[in-house]
């Protein structure tokens, strides 16, 4: 079953503010099946954040349609069904927490949905446990570290019991430790609770963790496949101003220098295996 189905969507912002890059999305077709972990890549201004905002009806396409579990996002009566099915986590953890206290912030979503008080309590506790922040439930949100705040933000979305979470560069403002915490949380939610993940990121080592990588450029999808197939196309990625994971790059350079190594090396461990096999 597909959680997200985008059909030929086109979008552009109103002329005045963005005169040069008029068309942001230029006929995007994308379906995301339930339980998949998709990484969405692209250089700045390629339209990936705009695309993400179409997945929970923050923006409506000017052409084409987006369906969330067969509900069209332009159906105003079902807007809150769409938004509770596809939760969204933004880049800056400070600017998405509404309440001062952790558990009260997590309760914000279900409160808006009109869930009964006892049920909210249960959902909040479950969500906080799922992101490993249960011990911090009565702490002040502003005193947490960036990674912890971002996990609270994820819990806030989880408490609405979504089937899909869209994360728009959730690790961009975090230190390496916070980034690891958030990535582990995302992977665990995908694996253990079967929540569909759409992760927008600049970090290739995060994209490697996904089931599928989608690369966008200039409002279009240019590459779509498993991390292995996408990252082996080093030159295409370079043309789109994107990096490749460091092990992949190393092997790419070695190949160019005439060393017989495979193209689709993704992780450090694989790289070590390949190189030690060559040297021994």
């Amino acid at each position, binding site marked *: 079953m597909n959680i997200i189905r985008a059909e030929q969507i086109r979008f552009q912002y109103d002329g005045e503010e963005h005169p040069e890059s008029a068309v942001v999305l230029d006929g995007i077709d994308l379906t995301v099946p339930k339980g998949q972990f998709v990484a969405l890549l692209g250089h700045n201004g390629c339209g990936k954040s705009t695309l993400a905002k179409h997945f*929970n009806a*923050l923006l409506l396409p000017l052409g084409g349609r987006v369906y969330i579990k067969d509900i069209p996002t332009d159906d105003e009566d079902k807007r*809150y069904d769409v*938004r*509770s099915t596809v*939760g*969204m986590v*933004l880049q*800056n953890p*400070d*600017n*998405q*927490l*509404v*309440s*001062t*206290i952790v*558990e*009260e912030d997590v*309760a*914000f*979503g*279900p*409160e*808006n*949905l*009109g*869930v*009964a*008080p006892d049920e*909210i*309590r249960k959902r*909040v506790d479950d969500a906080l446990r799922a992101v490993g922040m249960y011990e911090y439930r*009565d*702490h*002040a*949100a*502003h005193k947490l570290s960036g990674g912890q705040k971002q996990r609270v*933000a994820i819990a*806030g*979305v989880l408490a*609405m019991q979504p089937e899909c979470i869209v994360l728009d560069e959730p690790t961009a403002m975090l230190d390496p430790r916070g980034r690891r915490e958030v990535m582990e949380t995302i992977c665990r939610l995908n694996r253990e609770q079967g929540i569909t993940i759409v992760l927008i990121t600049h970090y290739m080592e995060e994209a490697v963790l996904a089931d599928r990588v989608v690369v966008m450029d200039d409002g279009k999808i240019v590459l779509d496949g498993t991390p292995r197939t996408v990252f082996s196309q080093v030159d295409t990625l370079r043309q789109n101003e994107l990096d490749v994971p460091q092990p992949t790059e190393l092997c790419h350079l070695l190949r160019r220098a005439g060393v017989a190594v495979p193209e689709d090396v993704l992780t450090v461990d694989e790289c070590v295996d390949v190189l030690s096999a060559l040297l021994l």
Partner: protein
Amino acid sequence: MLADITFGQFFPGNSVIHRLDPRIKLILTFAYILLIFLPDNWVGLAAAVVFLGISVMLSRIPLKPVLKGLKPVIPLLIFTSLINMFYVDGTPLFSFWIVTVTREGVFTALFISVRILSLIAAGSLLTYTTSPTTLTDALERVLSPLKLLHISVHEIAMMMTIALRFIPTLIEETDKIMAAQKARGADLESGNVLQRVRALIPILVPLFISSFRRAYELATAMECRCYHGGDGRTRMKQLHLCGRDYVALGCMAAFVALLIVSNIYVPAMI
């Protein structure tokens, strides 16, 4: 520097005061703030201070930050005290040059100081022991009759929640901007008042711009979480009055009675 501001902060805890119904706390605090202006004799004033003191002790909040929170009021206290000492007519105590200090003046100054301190301490006690969300929740419920007058109580309460939530964030940001401007040679600490105020402009401008950006992002985040005003919204924390709330009300009633009796029977000092 700015991190020292404790007013409006919340110290999580589990004391009797923390567990009082926030509506009761809110009403009692407002009653206290009004009543502190009632006593005109030392018995009533002492009773007010003791009443507050006991409440603070019961709340078991750390005293140090609380006292620190009172510090910014001291200049105001000194100013009002001096004005009162010199301008209230009555029996002169002593005089020099053109000013005369009167007995009544000294008492008025003392009373006003104690009143201002108690008022701020009472207000602080409310915010120290009540989480901002609970507080605004209580405010929303206490003020809900105003809905009949078409006042959007929920929206006001939500604005307060967000304001309280962003105070620490913006203070932190101000500190950062100040450090950044100082690193570029901005002089914030010398010069006369006018120069200092002007030196604040390069701090306030970026602060405002970033606040608007934050507001925009927060609005997006709230929309993502299905916020659509107060209609159809439920609350995780339900409020029920219980034994201790009635005891608190009883204590307040006794306090009011004491104030009235002392005002009638003890000779007024101001």
